């Protein structure tokens, strides 16, 4: 029983990270209807900003960690908005495939320039937050896990507030529902889309730092697998649906951790894709998504 709870806790903290990355995918998909492949590399850049910032602030202090987190989030928000401005804006309205290939190009560009700029060898992520382990009812709770869960929950509440309680959030929902009608109602689509990229990238940066706290070996290709899995999480919950992304991330993280702890551990990378395939075959709109009928 205590082993089950331990795995559940580990799974939830991994799932919270997937959820943060998945939110970025789902928001961009919501407003632009395309898969931003470069998102996983923004995640990578986020943890590298964290790595360099982590050397500037005193280690193992709460405020130091929060400063690192904030700087990485701002840095990645700027990066995300720049990518959107330079690469995606010109392609708005062109076929999905072209945008997808451009996104893949941006992703490769970030990965390979990362290999030159940061170096291809893995680096050890500093422990920027205080590290302590507690034992509660037979299970070991790491302070990093608590930080991961706390930061994720706070960020998701903030996101929920932005999307449902602010003017820009209303505009985001309007663009996602019908871009043309939103323009006619006086919404500036460019600003909204740019903001969405910034917000999503900031969440990815937070995810990157939290991921690096728990798996402290970072390299320029680290984003690929978590990125793909987070995307699976976004689809699992229903793409374009914000609570869905959070739910999908938690489910995926938990399932993966349990598989990793079982005799099937070598198949853990396949399990995410198996879930993806099953969900798309039986409920293509995802767990919380709504079906739309194609009209001629």
């Amino acid at each position, binding site marked *: 029983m205590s082993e089950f709870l331990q795995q559940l806790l580990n799974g939830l903290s991994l799932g919270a990270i997937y959820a943060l990355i998945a939110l970025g995918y789902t928001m961009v998909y919501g407003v632009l209807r*395309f*898969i931003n492949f470069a998102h996983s590399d923004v995640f990578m850049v986020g943890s590298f900003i964290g790595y360099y910032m982590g050397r500037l602030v005193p280690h193992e202090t709460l405020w130091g960690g929060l400063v690192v987190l904030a700087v990485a989030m701002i840095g990645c928000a700027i990066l995300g908005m720049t990518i959107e401005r330079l*690469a995606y804006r*010109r*392609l708005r309205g*062109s*076929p*999905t*495939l*072209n945008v*997808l*290939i*451009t996104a*893949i*190009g*941006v*992703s*490769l*560009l970030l*990965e*390979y*320039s990362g*290999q*030159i700029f940061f170096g291809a060898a893995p680096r050890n992520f500093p422990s920027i937050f205080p590290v302590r382990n507690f034992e509660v009812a037979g299970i070991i709770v790491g302070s990093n896990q608590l930080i991961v869960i706390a930061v994720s929950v706070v960020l998701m509440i903030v996101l929920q507030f932005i999307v449902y309680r602010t003017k820009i959030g209303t505009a985001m929902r309007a663009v996602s529902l019908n871009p043309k009608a939103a323009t006619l109602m006086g919404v500036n689509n460019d600003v909204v889309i740019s903001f969405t990229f910034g917000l999503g990238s900031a969440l990815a940066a937070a995810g990157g730092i939290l991921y690096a706290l728990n798996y402290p070996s970072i390299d320029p290709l680290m984003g690929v697998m978590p990125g*793909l899995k987070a*995307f*699976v999480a976004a*689809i699992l919950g229903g793409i374009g649906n914000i609570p869905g992304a959070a739910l999908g991330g938690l489910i995926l993280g938990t399932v993966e951790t349990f598989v990793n702890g079982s005799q099937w551990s*070598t*198949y853990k*990378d*396949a399990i*995410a*894709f*198996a879930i*993806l*395939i099953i969900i*798309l*075959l039986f409920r*293509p709109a995802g767990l919380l998504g709504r079906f739309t009928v*194609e009209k*001629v």
Partner: protein
Amino acid sequence: MPKPHLALIVALLAAFGVQYFSDRFDPYYLDVLTGIGINVILAVSLNLVNGYTGQFSLGHAGFMSVGAYLSAAVTLFLGPKLFGEDGGTTLQQSGLFLAALMAGGLSAAFAGLLVGVPSLRLKGDYLALVTLGFGEIIRVVFQNVEVLGGALGMNGIPPYTTIFWVLAFVAITVFVVTCLVHSTYGRGFLATRDDEIASEAVGLNTTRYKIVAFVIGAFFAGIAGGLYGHFKLTITPTGFDFTKSIEIVVMVILGGMGNTLGVILAAILLTLLPEVLRPIAEYRMVLYSFLLIVLMLARPQGLFNFKLRKGKA
């Protein structure tokens, strides 16, 4: 194209000719040419799925790996049993290699059927992801099968791939895809791409067309995998991950979807590009991805697609 059969025979003879004089070429150029040929087979076969039928598949490397593993298994395990340790005569080896390639192609086609039947109900991005997922699952499965070398892959595959085989299969792939698409039956692929709902309304079984395209595409990907395995002599599961699939998709898109000649040119260009950029070593992939973005922004219809696009309503 007029007289496609004649063109095929000429191409096969030409392949034989190149093989005959292959001693006189620089081995480096032969290697590059082999690489180009394998990529052309992959790109042209994927073009049948992505370009002509309009189904976005990101799992081509998965089928390639099925073909590579199965054909390598045939030559590695059956070869010594049939012909003893000395490996048999050249003709025996060629026969075995052909059988191995066929086994690889057919098993890849079967994998294509297994993947295609459930996933082709989906469209666009979703299909892309499911095929990507299947590709990754195939890779993880190969990583876990001990008989096929596990994560280390298979080593010591006999070097059966010669320039003749590569060029011959390039010719056959181009022949099959071109003839298929220009046949009466093949119009169904184009109809499925242009408007699926309208095609269904006039009574075409679009699901069947998609599956046929997928299976044929997978078959040639398997052949290309077999050629690749017997060319590199060692195969690892990570060599067939989704970056390889993306590489092939990029060739198809740059060539202009559904334009065989363009796709062939793009495959040649994109195989040569890393070779040409070799002097700038570590910067070449940066430049490659940068060029990809620029090309997509500047020529979204594909680099080699010179047909005028009609405005879409």
